[in-house]
């Protein structure tokens, strides 16, 4: 039995490592097994997540970075089903969004940046324990940002000054994946898995400035490749609290940590 479990784990890790992608999904996925108590019940959490993506429109590729703090509320049902919701605040930076592509254009800054926008995430997961120390789970989650991110810059075009405002509207993402979980002594859960992911946001410039790629007109930024991999550790603390540390890697590395409490 142990040999079989070990084989499944090794194969899972190989699958995860061989999958290549260019994007990572927003927020942690958490361990496949719900953190609620075995009989079910509420759990809450508070976490921080640093997310990096590569977003592309038809012509250019931009690196985005989000820093999120969030509060989570979940309800675990018996037989390892879990629904959860998160509400949080996120900042967004889009590198080189204002970088000129011609020498005739200059800008006062290169990066788009705005902080503290509300977002919410809804998710569900199910877990199947193959062995007392090993199990497989699946999840799906999606996030939506209630507010638009906006930033502006000033510059010159052929010596004439201009001010341009850029808006990133209707940012959302959806993710789904499979997780493999192993429980080691002290109740620590290790988990890895592959996932698929899609995100997009509309870019809305206030004017068209020649030499600034993102101001050419309304366009959509989205991730190009949809596959990624994640891994994490879920460790019990004391008095009902648990610590989760998770990382994702696709084209760029993302990661974060959360502390949950199970009622």
């Amino acid at each position, binding site marked *: 039995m142990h040999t079989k479990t070990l084989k499944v784990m090794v194969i899972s890790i190989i699958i995860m490592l061989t999958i290549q992608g260019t994007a990572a999904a927003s927020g942690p996925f958490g361990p496949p097994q719900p953190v609620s108590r075995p009989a079910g019940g*509420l759990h*809450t*959490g*508070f976490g921080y997540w640093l997310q990096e993506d590569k977003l592309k429109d038809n012509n250019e590729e931009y690196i985005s970075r989000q820093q999120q703090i969030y*509060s989570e*509320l979940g309800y675990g049902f018996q037989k390892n089903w879990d629904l959860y919701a998160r509400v949080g605040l996120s900042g967004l930076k889009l590198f080189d969004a204002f970088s000129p592509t011609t020498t005739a254009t200059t800008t006062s800054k290169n990066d788009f940046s705005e902080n503290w926008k509300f977002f919410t995430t809804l998710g569900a997961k199910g877990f199947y324990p193959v062995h007392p120390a090993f199990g497989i789970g699946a999840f799906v989650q999606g996030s939506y940002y209630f507010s638009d991110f906006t930033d502006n810059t000033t510059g010159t075009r052929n010596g004439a000054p201009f001010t341009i405002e850029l808006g990133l509207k209707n940012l959302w993402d959806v993710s789904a994946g499979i997780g493999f979980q192993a429980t080691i002594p002290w109740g620590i859960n290790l988990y890895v898995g592959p996932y698929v992911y899609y995100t997009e946001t509309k870019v809305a410039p206030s004017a068209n400035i020649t030499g600034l790629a993102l101001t050419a007109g309304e366009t959509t930024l989205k991730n190009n490749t949809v596959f990624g991999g994640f891994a994490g550790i879920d460790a019990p603390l*004391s*008095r*009902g*609290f648990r610590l989760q540390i998770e990382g994702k890697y696709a084209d760029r590395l993302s990661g974060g940590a959360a*502390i*949950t*409490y199970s*009622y």
Partner: protein
Amino acid sequence: MPQKAVPSMKSYLFGVTLLCVVLAAGCAHKPAVVSDPASSAAAPPAQQVMAAPKAEPSPPPSPEVSVKAVSGNLDDYQDIEDPDKGKEVEKVTIADPLEPFNRAMFQFNDKLYFWFLKPVAQGYSKVVPEPARVGVSNFYTNLSFPIRFVNSLLQANFAGAASELGRFIINTVWGIGGLLDPAASKEIDLKKQRADFGQTLGVYGVGQGFYIHWPLLGPSSPRDTVGIVGDIFLYPSIYLGPWEVWAGARVYERFNDTSLRIGDYESLKEAAIDPYVAVRDAYVQYRLNMIKHKGGPPPPGVKGLLENN
């Protein structure tokens, strides 16, 4: 889930008082007469009410009288040794020079409760399920954290202040902004402190003075009335902006709390020979216990009944 206190007229009638006083004052941000969850006028415990002495129409001559009697170990028949007889028995009363006025206000508050607050709270409880109402109560309790925290510090109750700070952080972060109360779980077990400014004054030796039964607010004393004013400035909702917002929030809080305690006041009234005297004496005893224990757990016999903040 928090244990709710036995109702006091002050608690039940706080919201309307607030609204009325604010309206009468006509000042948006001046927190006139306000009782907060940590206010001095706590609910009288049922046990104490049942054991309360009979009505005493005339007040004691001194502003505050504490009578201590120590007897031997024999019982009343002087033949069987009674282990409890050797303990110090303490009876605390308070001067009541305004008794005619106080009794009138007691009756006024009583009618207001039965004719207005209770029906409204009953209707509210039909619409809103109990878990939601408990969540609202938890939220308001969490919001009044500064009152308990600062007064614990003022009383040099540093363990209590640390406990309050821990409760606030845990309940805010992992209790969905205070709607849940994980800090009270068996595993975490951080006790909610009973601390207010009137109690702080009492810890520093300020006497209660005489008994006042405020219209709408209920039982109090000059010291505790001053304490209410001090607590107002530690209650975050008064900084919410327009007075309608925080007044509405406080009135709603009182209706919500009342909906969780319907029946308690009725039981208290039925159990007492003279409800006015029972409430008065229970109030004085409760405040004395609060000062003695400096926010710690209630003394035996009243545990879980008196926490109102």
